[in-house]
């Protein structure tokens, strides 16, 4: 068992060592072509940003949708994780849920 652990440690060490000095492969496209593509993508991103600035209602719409979604999610989480009052009272008084409901006359509420 101990020998196997040592073997695994040695193999892992060798694995890292053998891969440590590995030089990265060359770029699949010429560097200048790549740079031109990057600049094009950046100009597109800049245009998109400018358009969004010019049409602030778009950003507003997106923010409103995100807020509605967040509120709905928050409500779901709160209702899911907050135990019913009856359950809390039942725990406190060592009663069953239905006993509390019956005693307090909350059936159907």
């Amino acid at each position, binding site marked *: 068992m101990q020998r196997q652990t040592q073997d695994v440690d*040695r193999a892992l060490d060798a694995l890292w060592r053998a891969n440590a000095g590995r030089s990265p*492969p060359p770029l*699949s496209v010429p560097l200048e072509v*790549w740079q031109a593509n990057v600049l094009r993508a950046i100009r597109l991103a800049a245009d998109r940003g400018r358009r969004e600035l010019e049409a602030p209602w778009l950003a507003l719409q997106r923010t409103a949708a995100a807020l509605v979604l967040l509120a709905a999610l928050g409500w779901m989480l709160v209702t899911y994780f907050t135990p019913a009052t009856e359950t809390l009272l039942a725990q406190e008084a060592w009663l069953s849920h239905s006993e509390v409901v019956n005693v307090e006359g909350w059936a159907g509420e």
Partner: protein
Amino acid sequence: MTPEAPEATDAELIARVRAGDVNAFEPLLTRHREQVLAIVARHVPAGEVAETAQDVFVRAFQSLKGYRAERPFNHWLARIAVRACCDFWRHRQRAPEAAAAGLNGEQQEWLEQATQAAAQEAFARDTDRRRAAEVLEWALARLSAAERMTVTLLHRDGYSVRDIARQLGWTATRVKVTAFRARHKLRGWLAAELRRAR
């Protein structure tokens, strides 16, 4: 003889880009592309380097407003590059065949050799690096994106826990825990392969 105009600093170029001069990003790109390409090429497959590195610069351009000048621009860019690599692996579905299949005969042989204490010196000199890369890739493909990035930065690239935490935007504790879990998994898989080989 007229003196050459001094090259604009990173800070000056960034200020121009922030003011709306997109062309000022080009010298920044030219100046820092080698660094970004080197980081990305060490972490993603060869065929994906160009696109991932492009993504790094687009992200940098889009979040330039959040850049604080107290830190060097190249450090900030390196963080974006490391996180982009992490996102690359997060988005790429783990190949099911990689998770299911074991090592082939030659790869197992490499692993078996690597365990021979007496052969360590010779192995370090003569190791078949391609096979070592295959075995490592086989193991890393089974880890999660976060585990993969953490162990490669820590063990292959030799970064400190603090550096990794800074690059990934994590706490040092999270780096340690992730590295520990990843190492534990790697050891388990290698042990199983060694048992299979013997």
